[in-house]
């Protein structure tokens, strides 16, 4: 899936996560994570975001994640929503999600 514009999904509230997706500057995935639980769960948040991007076949994007202690399923859902908006996706294969 190709990221063609900027998009956001999520909120700043507790137990949620705000995900900003924008087109890549250098053809790779650049991921920045801010989290209140970065020390305990930083690696896991990164892995969840990367897996979700992979499932959506996103290989080039800039992603800024502001996490307020969201569960993995919430992170996945917010990343998916932001990517789909940023890719201007019309025909979706919900099975891969």
């Amino acid at each position, binding site marked *: 899936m190709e990221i063609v514009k900027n998009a956001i999904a999520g909120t700043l*509230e507790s137990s949620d996560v705000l995900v900003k997706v924008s087109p890549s500057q250098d053809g790779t995935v650049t991921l920045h994570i801010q989290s209140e639980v970065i020390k305990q769960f930083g690696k896991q948040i990164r892995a969840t975001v990367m897996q979700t991007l992979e499932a959506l076949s996103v290989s080039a994007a800039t992603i800024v994640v*502001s996490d307020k202690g969201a569960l993995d399923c919430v992170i996945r859902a917010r990343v998916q929503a932001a990517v789909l908006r940023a890719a201007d996706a019309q025909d979706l294969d919900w099975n891969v999600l």
Partner: protein
Amino acid sequence: MTDAPPGIDLNADIKLDFHTVSLTESPEVEAEIRSLLHDNGLDLDEQVETFVVCREKGRIVGCAGLDRDVVKDVAVAPSLRGTAVSLRLGSVVLKLAAARGHHDLFLYCRPDTVQWFRGWAFYPLVEVPGVITLMENNPLNLPRYVETLSRERRPGTTIGGIVMNANPFTLGHRFVAESAAKVCDWLHVFVVKEEAAEFSYSDRFRLVTEGLADIANVTVHHGSRYIISRATFPGYFLKDKAAVEHGFCGIDLLMFREHIAPALGINRRYVGNEPLDATTSSYNAAMKHWLSEAPSASAPIETIVIERLTVDGAPVSASNVRALLARGDLGGVEKLVPPTTFAFLRQYQQAGR
């Protein structure tokens, strides 16, 4: 923000209604917003076009102003601090801005509230101590910009920098750059990118490049949101002298000192003295203070004021050129600008602007 005691939902009893208002359309809301801002030690910023307001039982308990891609005037009633009202307000502001096409935002706040806005996913860029802090919500943008700039770094011990609007590029600009290039190992010239001038950015940039093409040790750089932009220096475009003196230009100048100059090794900043334009004149006066005297983790930058070039006894300025052009006095214009700018202005005039 304080933490909720365990097991107690601070938001359970609060019914909040968020909506956006344009102050020009609803002047009656303005007084209410002013009063909330006042309680938070803030003044209403005249440039804010839209406010997100949060009402509880009809009363405004939170507000946040949006001026294109800049968030200002954020306040929450004291009784609701420590609740999630602020975060909900922040979420609404980010969505509203995104819907308007602004994804990478700046935010102005008092330095003592920076921690609060980290919760809004903003990161501090630069602070005028005790007065104001500029933050942005994409932590990747500035490092990326600084990295791009640093590729243009040139060797030498005396590295100059000039920031010009060049609206349009005159012999006055040329004189300042030429004087600086003569004594510097390298000179970096930035063209203000904001489209708030009579001439478009692409025209202004091209005329600067052409006008300095014969000077070997000069690089002309594109401006950015980090150099005299609506974000870093709103007063410049308002031509509001009070705003300039209020410390706003401290933000722009500290931004230059702490982020831009180090990328290129700039240790001198050159300006033409400014007898005509009050805003630019106050800016030049503030330059010395913020670039060298004010406390900062970054090395001081020497400000060097170049006596303005005069033609027929009158100082050359872009505002003079625009005035002559408006009167159709092309002969007068020709004396004040290099041939490259003159060729452009003649066409511009003939095209009926």
